[in-house]
C-alpha cells in the first residue's frame, strides 16, 4: 500500500515518517517513532491506554490515523517529565499516592489528567472522576488515582495537599 509522508511535532521535536493511510496513530508512535510508553488496551476506544495530547486536546491515538495527525503538536508520556529529568507534579502524584499498580493504564491516565488540569486547575473529586472516565484502570479502583491528581493540582497551584478523610 502506498505510504504518505507525515511530519509532526512530538514532545517538542520535529519528526517525520512514512505511513500507510490506514496506519493508526498509536502504531505510528509506538513503531515508527519507537516511543512505547503509549499503550494499546482495546480496539473500541474505551480503555484510554493510548491517550496522547494533540493540539491541546486529549485524543485516543488508537482511533486516529497517523495521516490525520499531519502537522500536529503531540505530547506523549515520554514528554511529561520536567526539563531537568525529574518527575513532573502528576508523575510524582501518581507515585506518592500509589495511583498505579501494573502501570499499563498509567501513561494514558497521566496524559488525560494533564489535559484535565489545564482545563480545570482545581477540579473537585466528582470533576476528576468524570474527567478521567474515558480511561479504564483494572488495578487501582481509581481512588488513589483521584488522590494523585489532587496532589498534582495542589502542587501546580502552590497550595498544600490535604488528603480527604476516609
Amino acid at each position, binding site marked *: 500500500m502506498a505510504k504518505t509522508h507525515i511530519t509532526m511535532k512530538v514532545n517538542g521535536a520535529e519528526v517525520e515518517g512514512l505511513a500507510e493511510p490506514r*496506519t493508526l496513530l498509536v502504531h505510528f508512535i*509506538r513503531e515508527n517513532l519507537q*516511543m512505547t510508553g503509549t499503550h494499546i488496551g482495546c480496539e473500541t476506544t474505551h480503555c484510554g491506554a493510548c491517550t496522547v495530547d494533540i493540539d491541546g486536546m486529549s485524543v485516543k491515538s488508537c482511533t486516529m490515523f497517523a495521516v490525520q495527525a499531519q502537522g500536529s503538536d503531540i505530547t506523549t508520556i515520554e514528554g511529561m*517529565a520536567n526539563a531537568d529529568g525529574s518527575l513532573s507534579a502528576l508523575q510524582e502524584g*501518581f507515585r506518592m499516592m500509589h495511583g498505579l*499498580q*501494573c502501570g*499499563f493504564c498509567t501513561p494514558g491516565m497521566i496524559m488525560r489528567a494533564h489535559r484535565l488540569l489545564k482545563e480545570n486547575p482545581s477540579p473537585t473529586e466528582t470533576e476528576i472522576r468524570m474527567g478521567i*472516565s474515558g480511561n479504564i484502570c483494572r488495578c487501582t479502583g*481509581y481512588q488513589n488515582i483521584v488522590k494523585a491528581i489532587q496532589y498534582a493540582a495542589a502542587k501546580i497551584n502552590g497550595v498544600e495537599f490535604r488528603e480527604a478523610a476516609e
Partner: protein
Amino acid sequence: MNDMTPTREQREAKLEGMGCKRKRVEDIRFTQGKGNYVDDVKLPGMLHGDFVRSPHAHARVKKIDDTEALKVPGVLAVITAETLKTVNLAWMPTLAGDVQMVLADGKVLFQNQEVAFVVATDRYAADDGINKVVVEYEPLPPLIDPFKAMAPDAPVLREDLAGKTTGAHGPRKHHNHIFEWTVGDKDLTDAAFRKAEVTIKEMISYHRTHPSPLETCQCVCSFDKIKGELTIWGTFQAPHVIRTVVSLIAKLPEQKIHVISPDIGGGFGNKVGAYPGYICAAVASIVTGKPVKWVEDRIENLTATSFARDYHMTTEIASTKEGKVTGLRVHVLADHGAFDACADPSKWPAGFFNIVTGSYDFPTAHLSVDGIYTNKAPGGVAYRCSFRVTEAAYCIERAMDILAQKLGMDPAELRLKNFIKPEQFPYHSALGWEYDSGDYATAMRKAMETVKYAELRKEQAALREAFKRGETREIMGVGVSFFTEIVGAGPSKNCDILGIAMFDSCEIRLHPTGAGIARMGTKSQGQGHETTWAQIIATEIGIPADNIMVEEGNTDTAPYGLGTYGSRSTPVAGAAIAMAARKIKAKAQMIAAYKLEVHEDDLEWDIDGFRVKGLPEKTMSMKDICWAAYNSVPPGMEPGLEAVSYYDPPNMTYPFGAYICVMNIDVDTGVYKVRRFYALDDCGTRINPMIIEGQVHGGLTEAFAIAMGQEIRYDADGNVVTGSFMDFFMPTAVETPHWETDFTVTPSPHHPIGAKGVGESPNVGGVPAFSNAVNDAFSFLGSTHIQMPHDYWRNWKAAKDLGAVA
C-alpha cells in the same frame, strides 16, 4: 555516643522494612512510559502472527483454502492443524489433564476458536491475510445450556474422546461429562438433613466472566537455528512452568529455552495458562527462522483466551431452629467449555472449592462437582482468586443470608452464632482443610460497630415501611459478607502443577558494599514485588530496602518457582525470602563473631547488625559484615554472602475479612447507588500497608464489576454477546464506589513472618457483599435469591417480577 549517632528509630526508618508504607520503585519507570511490556519488544526482522477464528460455536471444518491469503503482500505463511501435525503440536495438554486443539482439527467447538495462524511482515498484512483465508464450515447444533449437557440426546462435542469412559479425574458419566469430584461424608450429611429442624435449598449461579487485564495476552518467540535455542518473551504469570511445558510438548531441551516475562500489564489469572497463540508463534518462528510476535486484541482476549467462574451451585444448609448450622450439602454443575483447561493444581479438578464451609463450624458437609463440556471458550482460570475460592465464598455467603431470612434472624447475628471460635484453631473443616488461625467474631464486631450496623437496620426498616405506604420508590439493602480464603498453594503433599510441587524460591546475593540482588520464582503483574520483597529482606537482615534490587521473570537467572497467582506469592515466596535471608544472617553472625572476637552465642541482632550482649557499643553492622564477607571470613569459611531457599509451605494460609455494603435501589429504573462499602481484611502480618490498601481497592472494584454487570454471555447459537468493552462491564471512575478499608492482624502461625496474602481477598469477599446487598434490598418483597449480575435491567426485572413495578 555523639549527637550524630542515629537513634534506633532513625536506623529502623532508614531500612524501610516491613510495615513501612514504602513508595514503589517500579513507579519511576511506569510513570515515565519506560516500562517494558511484551508488545514493546521489537527484534530485527520480526514477523507478526494473527488468527483466523471460527464464527461458529460448533461446526465441522470441511476445508481451509489459503491460496488467496498467500498472495497478499507481506503474508509469508498460513499455519493450520495439518502443519502442526507435522511437529505433533495440533493438540496440546492442558493443566487440568485434558487436551486442547491448538488449531481447529476437523471441527470447531466454540466461537472465535483458533482455526489458522497467518504470519506476515507486519500486523496489518497479517490482518489482510486473515481476510483472504477461506474456511468452509458445516454447522452442527451448539450446546450452550449447561443443564442440557448431559441429556441423552445432547450433541457430542468431543469426538476425540469417543469411547473414553475415564478422564484425568476418574469415570465419565456421559459423552459431555469431564469428571465428578466428591468430598466429605455423604451418609453423615444426609443424616444431618433428615434430622434438621430447618433446611434451605437454592440454586446459586456464579456467572461466566473474564479477568480482562488491560494488557492482553501476547508473546514474541525467537528461534535461533544455529544454537537450537528458543527465546520467548511473554505475558506469563508463571514463566518457569511455561519453560517446562514448552520443553515437554515441543521436545526441546529445557536449557535451550529462555522464557522472559518482562513487565506485565495486569494478570488476574488470565496469564497463567498456555494458549494457542504461544504455540503458534513458537512454531512460526521455528518454521520461518525469524522472531514472531503474537498480540491478541481485546475481542480475542474476552472471547477465546480463557474465562472465569461459570459454576451453578445447588446449595442446602441444615440448621436448628435457633440458627446453629448442622450440615452443608452442595452440588456444582461446572461449565468448563470446550476443553478442560482449568488452571488449578493438577489434583484439584474443582480447585479448592471445598473451602465452601467458609468461616462456619459445620459438623458435617458433602460436596460433589460435575464438570461438563459445552460449546464455549475453555479456561476456568482463577480470576483474582485462589482456585474456585471466589465461587465457594459466594455460595456459602449467599446461602447463609438465605438461611437467616428463613429463620427471621439478622444475617450478621447468624454468622456470629456459627463462626469457628479462636480457640478451635488450628481448625479441621468437615471438607478436609486445616485452617491456620483466625479471630472472626472480633473482625465482624469491629465492622458492625464502624458502620453502625444496628442503625442501618433501623433505617432500612423505616424505609421499607415508607415504601409500603407508597412514600418512596427506593429500597435499601445491607450486604454482609464474612469470608475465609485459602491461599498460598501450596504444600507439596497436596499441590503440584503437572507433577512439579508448588514450592517457591528466592536467591539473595549480597555485594561487598552492603547492597544486593534478590531473584525470585514469582512474577509481579502490578503487585509491587520489587518494592515489598526488598522490605522483607530489609527487616530480616538490616540492609536498607533501597539497596536491594529485586529481579523476577527471567528463567535463566531466577531460581525455579511456580509463579504469581492464587495469592501465593507472599505465603510461599515471601516465606522463601525470609528463609534465604535467615541463612545469610546465620553466616553473617559467624563473620561478625570472628571479627569482634567473641563467640557467636554472645551476639544479638539489633536492627541492622550484631552487637555483643552486655556491650552495646561493640557492634558490627550488616554493611560492614558484607565487606568482611569478601575479604576476611573466618578460617575454613567460604567467602561471599548469598543464599537460596526453596520453600515448601507446611500448610496453606487462611486470610479472612468482614465486608459490609450499603446500597439503595430505585425499583422503577433498577438504578442502584452504593452508599457505603466497608472492607476489613485480616491478612496476618502486613508488609506494606499502602500496597495492601491498593490491592483491596482494586479487588473490590473487580468484585463490584462482577457482581453488578460483568458477564461473558452467550446467545442460544453460541455467539458471545459481551465480547468487547462496548458490552463487557468495565467500571470507570464514575461508577466505581468509594472504598473504606480497615484491618485486624492475626498472623499465620506457620509462616516465617506471619503473612497470609491479600490480593484476592477483596474479590472473594466483595462479590457476596454486593450481591447480598441487592438480595437484602429485595427480600422484604418476597424474594429469596436473585441471580447475578445485578445490573440496572435485572434489578428492574426483579422488582417487576416481585410485583413492585407495574
